[in-house]
């Protein structure tokens, strides 16, 4: 890694009497999952490059409660939510960016009813704004002409109607964006949502991630782009299952951009 990451915490900034422009909500996957941590770092590199004043909660962050809620454990969900909201409200947080569509959806849609009112954006939306405001530029053309297909995360796409920000970013890489047969509103789930990530699938003919990987492979991609750490895991496993990991890379949009920048 070229530069050391600058990752200030809310506690540090608060002690210094400062308040960041935005809170980066890292999420459990982004904090602990080895694959997802790379996405987190790529995104921080971009934030550092664009001189965005941000902070993380660090050890004060806790699961949003999304997997508990989708499992049916409303009690645990609300305990998590209320705890997180207390922390964030104490810091007077207004704006949150996250690289996880599940955290994004939960904080944006389900926290307001419990007293947590924030402007919440997905990292692809945030990066798009950085571009539009000329706070970050793309050079190189490392991905020029590369065949990239984009997998819509359910909780970003259908759940919240964010379809274009990630696609706009891929186009800015001069890559060839190829759509799968089911995309956008009709995008097929990777199989991880609704807490399926944490359990074995029910009996069936096939795993959902294999079905989705096959759809992706029909586009003959060099890269499968994702915007969700769980989709990333599912698609990576799917590509491995097809023994195509040498030919097809599964990358988050933030990783594509950081890599284009040689960060």
């Amino acid at each position, binding site marked *: 890694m070229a530069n050391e990451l600058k990752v200030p915490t809310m506690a540090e900034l608060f002690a210094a009497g400062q308040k960041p422009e935005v809170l980066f909500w890292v999420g459990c996957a982004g904090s602990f999952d080895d694959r997802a941590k790379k996405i987190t770092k790529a995104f921080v590199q971009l934030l550092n490059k664009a001189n965005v004043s941000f902070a993380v909660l660090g050890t004060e962050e806790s699961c949003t409660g999304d997997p508990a809620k989708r499992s049916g454990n*409303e009690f645990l969900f609300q305990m998590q939510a209320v705890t997180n909201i207390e922390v964030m409200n104490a810091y007077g947080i207004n704006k949150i960016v996250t690289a996880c569509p599940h955290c994004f959806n939960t904080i944006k849609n*389900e926290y307001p009813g419990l007293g947590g009112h924030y402007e919440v954006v997905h990292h692809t939306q945030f990066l798009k704004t950085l571009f539009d405001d000329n706070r970050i530029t793309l050079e190189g053309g490392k991905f020029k002409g590369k065949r990239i297909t984009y997998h819509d995360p359910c909780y970003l796409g*259908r759940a919240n109607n964010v379809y274009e920000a990630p696609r706009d970013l891929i186009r800015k890489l001069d890559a060839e964006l190829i759509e799968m047969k089911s995309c956008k509103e009709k995008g*097929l789930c990777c199989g991880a949502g609704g807490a399926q*990530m944490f359990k074995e699938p029910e009996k069936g003919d096939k795993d959902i991630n294999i079905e989705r990987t096959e759809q992706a492979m029909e586009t003959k991609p060099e890269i499968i782009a994702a915007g969700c750490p769980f989709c990333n895991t599912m698609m990576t496993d799917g590509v491995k299952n097809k023994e195509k990991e040498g030919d097809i890379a599964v990358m988050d949009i933030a990783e594509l951009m950081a890599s284009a920048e040689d960060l």
Partner: protein
Amino acid sequence: MEYLPNIIFVVVLTAGIGFFAKNVKRLSRNIKLGRDVDVSDNTGQRWKNMARIALGQSKMVVRPIAGFLHIIVYVGFIIINIEVVEIILDGILGTHRLFAPLGIVYDGLIGSFEILALLVIVAVTIFWVRRNIIRIKRFIKPEMAGWPKKDGNLILYIELVLMTLFLTMNGADYQLQQMGAAHYTEAGMFPVSQFIAPLFQGMSMSSLILLERTAWWLHIIGILCFLNYLYYSKHLHILLAFPNTYYGKLAPKGQFKNLDAVTAEVKLMMDPSADPFAAPAEDDTAEPAKFGASDVTDLSWVQLLNSYTCTECGRCTDECPANQTGKKLSPRKIMMDTRDRLEEVGKNIDANKGQFVDDGKQLLDGYISREELWACTTCNACVQACPVSIDPLSIIMDMRQYLVMEESAAPTDLNNMMGNVENNGAPWPFNQMDRLNWAKEE
């Protein structure tokens, strides 16, 4: 004796509409068995949704072939109903083609009804072929075996018969007009049935009149029968699609409702000044609210309305990732099961003088298995796919809540995950204190 046909007509009409009204009452009673839910917000947006999705068929055309054919049948249904108004008035007053004095407008109306009737016959035939010859996958799923399949075909046959009767009636009428029969004054334009009329050549005037009258009577009786068939079939969507799209979910699809009963508990737990040993309030004798749903009466009335609105088109199931990969879950079956159980509960109430008597059954396990509920990825593909704003996912979620919060019956893996969230704030067993370690790792 002169007024006998009028009297018979009024009796038939009253019986048909009266019986239908009885069914509507039963339908509304059953829907109201659901929990109350406040849907009085955003009336403007709700009207807009109804206009766009139900009236405008905006989500039907996502699948262009079925969507286009459906629009034909839908427009046919609405427009041809103008003709039914004339038929009813004729029946009551003993007139013939009451609206004929409208002249050229009348010609245009009758002409367009005829063309639509022909188009409906074509569309319905293609629908039948799709179901029975091409056997499109979503029509032959396990939940469609037996009655649902028969029901689907029966509706197509009824529509076919009604349209044929309508054209026969017009054809005979046209022929009688040509022959200058009394009462059959020249009126209307018959772009389709004029080609049927030659079949009747050589028939005597009296047998033609008999044919015309028979077709006329069978047509209106058929319509009244069809109206009453609705309640017993999947076909209620022709009426309920309108309220259902009005009451459909407005929040982003990813937003699942927060349970207020839980919020109250959680707030109390988090409140440092709450007295854990406080005696319950005097009036606190109400039974504690049940979390989630194990039977239809635990669902909201909007969810029950959803179940009656479902016309079993199967677009939801076709888009469901679990179903596509061979799992037992089918969102359409969730809706069909909910309706079937609700009907069962309704009949129970009718049989027991207005009181539900425990029948030892419930929606959970009796109709919907746990395996189905746990196979859902909550991806909202079914909700997106539904052309009439039905939300099968909300029922799945309510039933999961019951399983977890009332029965502690989550799959072991999920219990482990929830244990981790509870203990260390992450779905995996990592220490919360290590949450920022990534920032220092190479």
